[in-house]
Every structure is written in structure tokens, then in C-alpha cells.
């Protein structure tokens, strides 16, 4: 067994959290509240040291008064609590949105739209290796069919009849396969976290796993 008191604390708190799997109990609630309190305290210090000090307090102590403008904009969010001046929070929101959209839109269109449309197209290079699971012709046809049929399922301006019905039904299958793959990955993620905790308890704490 470990002689490190921190390992013991971590192990006991892990078991307290796991105890919820049996039923809700005071040990679980203690660990839950401790975690919440610690996280809030930790983040408060973290944000103060990493955001407030370098970007606000230090520049102001060095008489860089231009910092007062973003500070005033930030503080305008507090008008939310004054009903008569509530509308003033639109100013910082508008600036943030304008800045983020200006920064994002051209790049997102290139990366998310143009490149993805390009990736859906079948091209002559796919003929070189027809069966390549990533860049072969068969994979290309499947991707094209999957994208077109999945989009057609979400086309609601016309009733799903005839060719549109066939395509929409095929789209459901592609969407379901996508959901299945995502669900499989999600299960693996949760199980991985559990495995890591079990490894910690049985390796670091009681030294049963070598």
C-alpha cells in the first residue's frame, strides 16, 4: 500500500464518488461539494493571476491608460443588473460579436465549406487505387452518396415522396451509422476514464497491479 498521504486522500475521494453507483449518500455529497468548492477557488486564483494581473492590473500600474477602454467595455456587462441601463450591454456584445465574426467567417468558409465540398467530390486521382478506404473511388462514391442523401433527409421544403423519399431513407441509414460510431467512441471514452481510475486505485494506492 502507498505511504503517500495525497494518494490516500485521492483514493478515498475516488471511492466516495464511486459510492454513488450504489446510491446517493453523504460520502458522495461530501466529495462532490469539496470538488466544486476547490474548482471554484482554483479557477478564481487562476483567472485572477492569468487574466486580471497581466492584462489589467499591471498595465494600469504602468500608467498604460488605454487599458481603461477594454476595462470599461468589460464592466458594461454589469449593466445587466440595472434595469434602466440594461440596453448598454449591447455595446460590448456587439463589439465581441463583430470581432469574432470578422476573425472567423473568412477562415470558416474556407475550412468548413470550400474544403469540405472539395472533399466530397469524386476526382480522377481516386481511380489510381479504387479500393483505398480513404481516397479510393469506392470511398469517394460512398462519401458522395452519404453527404447528398443525408442532406436530402433534412430538406423539408418538399414532401418526402418518390426519389426524395428513397434518398432521405438512405440518408437516415448514413446518419444512424454516424451516430453508432459516435456512440461507440463515447462508450470507449467513459470506459477509459474508469480504467484510469481503477489503474490508479490498484497500482498507485494498493500496489496490486504491477
Amino acid at each position: 500500500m502507498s505511504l503517500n498521504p495525497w494518494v490516500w486522500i485521492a483514493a478515498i475521494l475516488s471511492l466516495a464518488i464511486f459510492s454513488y453507483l450504489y446510491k446517493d449518500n453523504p460520502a458522495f455529497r461530501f466529495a462532490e461539494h469539496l470538488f466544486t468548492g476547490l474548482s471554484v477557488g482554483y479557477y478564481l486564483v487562476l483567472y485572477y493571476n492569468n487574466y486580471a494581473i497581466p492584462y489589467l492590473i499591471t498595465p494600469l500600474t504602468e500608467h498604460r491608460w488605454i487599458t481603461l477602454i477594454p476595462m470599461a467595455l468589460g464592466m458594461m456587462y454589469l449593466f445587466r443588473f440595472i434595469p434602466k441601463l440594461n440596453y448598454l450591454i449591447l455595446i460590448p456584445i456587439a463589439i465581441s460579436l463583430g470581432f469574432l465574426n470578422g476573425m472567423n467567417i473568412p477562415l470558416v468558409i474556407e475550412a468548413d465549406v470550400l474544403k469540405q465540398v472539395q472533399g466530397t467530390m469524386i476526382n480522377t486521382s481516386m481511380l489510381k487505387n479504387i479500393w483505398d478506404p480513404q481516397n479510393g473511388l469506392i470511398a469517394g462514391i460512398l462519401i458522395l452518396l452519404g453527404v447528398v442523401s443525408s442532406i436530402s433527409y433534412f430538406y423539408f421544403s418538399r414532401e418526402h415522396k418518390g426519389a426524395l423519399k428513397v434518398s432521405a431513407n438512405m440518408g437516415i441509414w448514413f446518419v444512424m451509422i454516424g451516430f453508432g460510431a459516435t456512440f461507440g467512441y463515447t462508450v470507449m471514452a467513459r470506459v477509459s476514464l474508469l480504467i484510469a481510475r481503477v489503474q490508479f486505485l490498484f497500482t498507485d494506492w494498493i500496489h496490486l497491479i504491477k
Partner: protein
Amino acid sequence: MLKLLSKFGKLDRRLVFALLIATILIPLLFSVKSHFYVDAATKGLYDYIDNIEPNGRPLLLSFDYDPQVAAELDPMARAVLRHCFAKGIKVIGMSLQPQGDAIGEGIITQVSREFGKKPGIDYTYFDFRPGGYIIMLQMGTSVKQALPLDYYQVPYDSLPMMHNIHNYGDIAMVLSLAGSTWPYSWIIFAGTKFKVKIGAGQTAVMAPDNYPFLQTGQLVGQLGGMKGGAEYEQLIVEAGYYKKPGVASKAMSAIAYSHILIILLIVLGNIGYFVSRQLEGSK
């Protein structure tokens, strides 16, 4: 028989948890090994890193994650760093997450000691700077401006390995390890805008979101969840860069058996549901 089958639809959740713990614990206790194939996305990332010239342009490894997903991402970080240090590839470490900062420093220090690598010469770990996208964009014009101090508060100009690093053009690739959408932001703000190659190490929950970017080549490769870490561990062991597989490989049999159990329970649960509906209908 039908009554017995109908009970599978209403299994006590505590029994399910107990079975799951047992399926995870038994392979770990008895070191049961399982075979797994290496995914094309992992191989793509491995091949790209393997082709980086020793002592040439460095790899930028960004630890963009929090402790709650460290179980999945720590093994990836260790495996990639072992690959780089064994091959003589220089590494720039950084984090866009305040909590990832300390995690990254711990891992890079530990692995660098295994290979006798020196900070500032073979690798540099930068201090956390808030800003996310702004930092990514700033690095496109000046890494020094975006990251002026290393983790130990040494100024940029005093770090020998950073003397020839000005912007993304001097970096071989960016590898973002994250449990959120940071790799996507790297694709947008560094890959698309500055044409630097991007790789991702993602938690299993986030990994499927990146497949469209892998298919279009916007990502050179990806490590998905603990399996991605295990695959990379296997690749560096097979290539002789490291002597033994790490914790992710040891966990693979537990993952495999727990998944079999979950599939079995889903099938039995469905059978139980339909049988109990049939029994209710016959009443």
C-alpha cells in the same frame, strides 16, 4: 424461459456496474494482452512525425486539456514525446488551457529526463498565455510576441533552440492534444490561414468530429481516445524508439472486454424488452 429473458430488460444497475468493474479489473490484474490494429489516422500522424528531420524544424505540442480528460490524453503526450526525443526532434510545448499548463510541464519534464534532454536546447515549454485564438493568430507573425517567456520565466531570446523560430513557417507541425474543439481552432486559425500542418490527439468523445478534416487532409493524422494512445505506443515500440508499451496498451484488453460486455448487455436488454412486451400483450 421467456420470463427469465424478460428480466434482462430490467437488470439492476448495480449488477451492471459490478460486472463492468470486474471485466475491467480482471484483465488488468492478470495482465491479459489483446491484439489491436493500427488505425490509418494514427499511422498518418506517426509517419508525418517520423519524417521530421532530427534537429530540424521543431514540433509544436499544445497541451490543450484539463485533468478530467488526462486519462486519455496523457498516454498520447508521453508516446509522442518519446518518439520525438528518441529521434532527436526538437519540441516546443505550450498550452491554451490554464490547467493544461502544469500537466504539460510535468509530462515534458518527466519524458525529457528519460532521454537526457535539456530545456531551452532540446525542448522549450512556454508559460501559459490567455487568449486562445489570438495567440494562434499572433504566432503566425511572431512566436516571440505570442509567447515571450518560457514556463520558468526565461525570456524568449535566452532560449537557444528558439533563435531561428519566428513563425509557423519555422515549425514542422502543430499537434494539439485536447478534450474539446481546440484542434478545430488550430485548423482554422493556424492551418487554413498560415498553411502549417496540423495533427490532433482527441478524447474518444471528440474524435469522430475530426473525420471530415482527416479525409480532406486538413489534419495529417489523429489519435482517438485511449486506443489512439495505445496504437502510438505500439508503433514506437515496433520501430525501436522505446522499449516497452505504456499504460494505454495495458488498458486495451480491459477496453475490449468491457465493450464486449456492453454489447452483450445491449443485446440482452433489447431481447428482454421485446419479450416482456410480448408477455404483457398475451395477458
